[in-house]
């Protein structure tokens, strides 16, 4: 990567700029854009959370939907009982975290496919249970929240900042984790779990910590979501795509990095909005196509791929083709292009 973008002061400047941009966004945006922004922040929170267990620890968790739905219902039920929204959100986060510890004990000893499916099934079981507890949760008819006593614009701004807080907390946690002993240990577990045990890492404890972290902000986001939309039902709360989209976003941006999930969320949302507005009835097919292309061509994600070397490799291929055209033989254009690219790379 170019040296300019890698230096510490540059990072801090860029980070501050982005923070200011996020903070002042509501003043320049209309309600529609605010909604998009809030969704993007929610996606970021989900993707950053998945990154803890899937990116750092390397365990393919599909439990995001379970955490989200549980957080939504806990938040909704608490609010209906009169607890103020921000407190309800915190309590939802706390309860979901405790839930994650319990579930973790059951499934974290599984690996690979078995872990993936077990984590997926947790959400399904939760959905059925909540569907059945009609008196508490409204069952299949869903849970309604009392309407907010705020104007439309105020509401949009309030939820934007709430989601910004959740996403911001997730991001700060990611930065702290990246530099911490826990983060170091998770990376070891991801690369070679047997060696990690032999070097003195208590893998059970570390994996449980990662799983917990992957649940807290998701639970909070779920609770904010239900306050924002005013309604939730089991099918929507525990939908499988809530588990899959953060994975795609994080893979797109680069698993195990700090900003990868955020970039991925941003790009994904951009694509989703464009496709949804223009191709509604084939939007899931296009999502599928995106996933396939991502896996085939960019499996390590944007931040983990040295894009210059990809460009250089393609330039070299093109040069070979163009050598066959007599016109270009005298000029050797592509050697020149490749040399330029290589120079740029070597300076960075």
């Amino acid at each position, binding site marked *: 990567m170019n040296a300019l973008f890698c230096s510490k002061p540059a990072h801090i400047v860029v980070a501050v700029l982005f923070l200011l941009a996020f903070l002042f966004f509501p003043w320049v945006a209309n309600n529609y854009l605010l909604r998009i922004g809030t969704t993007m922040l929610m996606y970021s929170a989900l993707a950053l959370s998945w990154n803890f267990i*899937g990116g750092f620890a*390397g365990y*393919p968790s599909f439990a995001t939907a379970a955490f989200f739905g549980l957080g939504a219902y806990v938040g909704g039920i608490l609010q209906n009982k009169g607890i103020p929204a921000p407190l309800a959100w915190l309590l939802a986060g706390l309860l979901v975290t405790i839930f994650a510890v319990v579930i973790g004990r*059951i*499934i974290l000893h*599984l*690996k*690979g*496919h*078995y872990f*993936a*499916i*077990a984590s997926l*099934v*947790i959400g*399904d*079981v939760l959905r*059925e*249970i909540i*569907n*059945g507890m009609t008196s508490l949760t409204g069952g299949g008819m869903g849970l309604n929240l009392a309407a907010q006593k705020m104007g439309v614009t105020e509401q949009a701004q309030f939820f934007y900042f709430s989601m910004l807080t959740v996403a911001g907390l997730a991001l700060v946690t990611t930065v702290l984790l990246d530099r911490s002993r826990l983060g170091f240990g998770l990376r070891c577990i991801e690369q070679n779990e047997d060696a990690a045990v032999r070097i003195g890492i208590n893998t059970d404890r570390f994996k449980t910590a990662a799983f917990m972290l992957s649940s807290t902000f998701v639970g909070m986001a779920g609770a904010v979501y239900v306050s924002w939309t005013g309604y939730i039902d089991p099918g929507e709360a525990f939908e*499988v795509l809530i588990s*899959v989209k953060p*994975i*795609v976003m994080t*893979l797109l941006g680069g698993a195990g990095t700090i900003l990868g999930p955020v970039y991925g969320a941003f790009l994904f949302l951009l694509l989703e909005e464009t496709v949804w507005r223009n191709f509604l*009835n*084939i*939007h*899931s*097919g296009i*999502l*599928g*196509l*995106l*996933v*396939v292309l*991502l*896996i*085939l061509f960019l*499996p390590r994600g944007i931040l983990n791929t040295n894009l210059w070397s990809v460009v250089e490799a393609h330039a070299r291929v093109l040069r070979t083709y163009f050598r066959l055209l007599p016109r270009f033989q005298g000029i050797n254009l592509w050697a020149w292009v490749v040399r330029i690219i290589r120079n740029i790379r070597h300076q960075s």
Partner: protein
Amino acid sequence: MLSLQILINGILLGGLYSCIAVGFSLVWGVLNIINILHGSMIVLGAYAAFFAYSQLGIHPFAFIPIAGLSLFILGYGLQAKIINRVMGAPVLITLTLTFGLNLILDNMMMVAFKADYRKIILDPPLGLLELGSLLIPIDRLYAMVLALGLVGCLYAILRATQIGRAIVAVRMDRDAAALMGVKVKQIYAVTFATGAFMAGAAGCLMSVIFPISPLTSNAFLGKAFVVCVLGGLGSMPGVILGGILLGLLESFGTLWLGPDFSTTIAFVVLLTLLMFRPTGLLGKRGFE
């Protein structure tokens, strides 16, 4: 006797479930891929049978070879051109890839067929077989027999033909098989295609018994998964055992807890098994 009726229902269902699961189990066991497409391929086979019957009058049971072959070709193409490129990658990559492919296939079916439920109504209907107080729907009986027959044929092919033995060899030890001259990538494609064939065949059988719609593809996938975990990977008897067990679980579960909870029971059993015995009742230590 109510319990005996429930038992028969469960076994009839179980045979079908074995057929649903056998293709899935083969792909998981040999390629170490969880084929999220499997449910959709079953639905595709079912739709093909539906249109063949309603437009051309071909009986679904007779349509099995054609549906199977079409899906074989589809599966071969998918594996050879796309999935083979990520073989050996971590679980998350292959799982997400098949998930993406499934989204595409599902969407295409939604656009083509709409979400309406269709069911084949055989004319003349096959009716019921009455044994004392037991009622056995004949269509389910035939479907179960065919299902088990298909599973048995697959079992025989794997043991007896050269390509079948090559598939088993790749399952046991991919590197050793490669050293013995087996073209592993080609075997991967053939195996995936065979899984697709079985899915198509299962779809034909399903179309007679259940209403079908693209919305049901995930349910089939879930059942296939539970059967594999119950019975264990890498073993045909395991698939049959797992299928019958699931059939019985659902039958008795519906009796005791009502139809809403039968899926939950299956999942709870699944979770319990994953906790204590992920390799299933008859499975060899599978891939992780």
